[in-house]
């Protein structure tokens, strides 16, 4: 299991487009990528629920990646967050 935190820098937070891209990215790995914020957690492949988190600029979210390819998945998600959010 890999965990890491990320603080959102993008002005408008995780809205539809980045959520879609993140969900798509997560689906390419067999590992489960979970995002947690303020006690609420969501599997990031579930697009609607991910968007429903209402994550905004300045929020800190915690990722948990668990599965066979967790190393690669965690790296990919972290890079994605840094590049897009």
């Amino acid at each position, binding site marked *: 299991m890999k965990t890491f935190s990320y603080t959102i820098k993008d002005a*408008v937070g995780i*809205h*539809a487009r980045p959520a*879609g891209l993140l969900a798509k990215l997560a689906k390419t790995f067999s590992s489960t990528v979970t995002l947690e914020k303020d006690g609420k957690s*969501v599997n990031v492949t579930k697009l609607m629920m991910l*968007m*429903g988190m209402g994550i905004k600029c300045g929020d800190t979210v915690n990722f948990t990646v668990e599965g066979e390819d967790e190393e690669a998945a965690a790296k990919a998600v972290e890079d994605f967050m840094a590049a897009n959010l």
Partner: protein
Amino acid sequence: MDYKKCASEILTGIGGKDNLASAAHCATRLRLVIADNSKVKKTLIEGVDGVKGVFEAAGQLQIIIGTGTVNKVYDEFIALAGVEAASKEDVKAAAAAQAPLYKRAIKTFGDVFVPIIPAIVATGLLNGLLGGLSKAFPDMAGSYLFTLLDMFSNTALVFLPILIAVSAAKIFGGNIYLGGVIGMIMIHPNLVNAWSVGSGAETETLWSWFGLWNIQNTGYQGHVIPVVIAVLIMCTIEKKLHKIVPETFDLFVTPLLSVLITGFLTLTLIGPVFSQLESWVLSFAKMLIAVPFGIGAFIMGGVYAPTVVAGVHHMYNAIELAMLADNGMNTWMPIATAANVAQGAAALAVAFKTRNHKIKNMALPASLSAFMGITEPAIFGVNVRYGKPLIAGMAGGACGAAVASLMHVYATSNGVTGIFGFLITTESFVGYLLTFAVAAAVAFVLSYIMYKDAEPAAAVSGGSTAASPAPEAPVVAAADDKTYDDNCVYSPLKGKAIAMTEVPDDTFAAEVLGLGAAVEPSEGKVVAPADGEVSTLFETKHAIGLTLDNGMEMLIHIGINTVELGGEGFTAHIEDGARFKRGQTLITFDTELIKSKGYNTTTPVIITNPDDYAEVKKAADGNVDFLDKLIETKK
């Protein structure tokens, strides 16, 4: 999907069967009443394969599974949990939804007719008016203006089968242009016009079944039912072919075969069956009106309207012409008048009584047209749809016709009925007036007593317990005016439908968020495409996520990059998590403001659970109105 595994994992997620008070299910969800909510591990349930969402509402733990699968999971679930099936009411509700065939057939009929009513009313009124004027001023018939107006006035009726075919194809989900072709075949100029046949024109044999049954080259002008049946067959064939024909050949094989098979069947089988039926009706009608003491007329006046429904009424020309040739007294016309006027009066009563503006706006012109002798709008648009007005009209027609017969009312010509009928019944003015008045009065009073506005469609078993929609939210298009298919998405916007790949944004165009279509809105309003609930309402109100009762998850994203507006120009009319009904306004937005800030207002309508569907395709081209079909899906 492994239903048993899914059910057992859910059971574990809720803390075992000891924690379960009762279980029921609706169209998409398991609805569980839990003893101790703290023992429920929602995240665990959310992760179960097959579960699309979990939330609590109205004291229930609702687990969204989806149409067609929820019942199977439920069966496994109650077997595992050892509880009794909780919902006898659900079963009852489902049984009620399965209306009898004739009711659904009548509703379909109405649905087919409603969109084309404006065309028929326009030309029908002109037709009645001109018919009357030409009887009042015989000289007029020779003028150029009359020739022109006469042509305009009968166009929609002459080509009625084409209009019906197009509308029917749309309702049955086929290609409307192919449907149009079927309609055109049925009134092709190479066939002898049915109205002329009614007046004695010669026909030739077109085809013969084994030399036993000859098919005449008669057209289907004025027909309704054979057209609808033909198009239904075409759409069934077309949809089947789309499934089995490889994509490479689909574009030319499917239309070719659909038209070929349907055209042949129509002209050689469906049509002739109706022709036979018509000749029986004709002999029956002739026999009936010979019955004395107004009894025959009474019956005929009553059954006249159903024969219009069946589209066999154009045969009556033959009766009138025979009467006129015989002794110059057309006693058929007053019966037809009684029937027509009564249907008009029945529709008028509906117009007076209903509180639904859509029905009122349709019933008024329809009844006016019926008083002038063109009854199709009143019969199909109003009376058949609501059933009771048709019966009231039949009763009125029967009474009026009996009066006509007893008072020996006759016309000296033919071709008009209703108000303008006075012009050709000058020799029995009082009798005709009474016929008219009795028919109208009986039908109006009965229809007024019997007609009741339908209750607003009761909430389908899904989620009736959850919060009701916000009362201030207006609903567009009364939902009972159309049939809706769970496999289709009905447009939440009005504007121009475009393919997702044409959306001027890479993420949407690449279908990263899901499949669907987009609309370039002409009006700043988003309405609910179906019943369901809000799963995500963005704080910036530029997008809304919906979970529909049919299991579909949808994202409607108004404009491109409009998240950057921070909510400016958007107004939400519903709260996060609230339930909504089809047609309810969800969000309004100021298209001008958004455009003036430099944003594109193209709005993708995205199915975000496309993995649940075998196929998702755009089903509209060009302009769509609210709740027009936008996307078709296949499971």
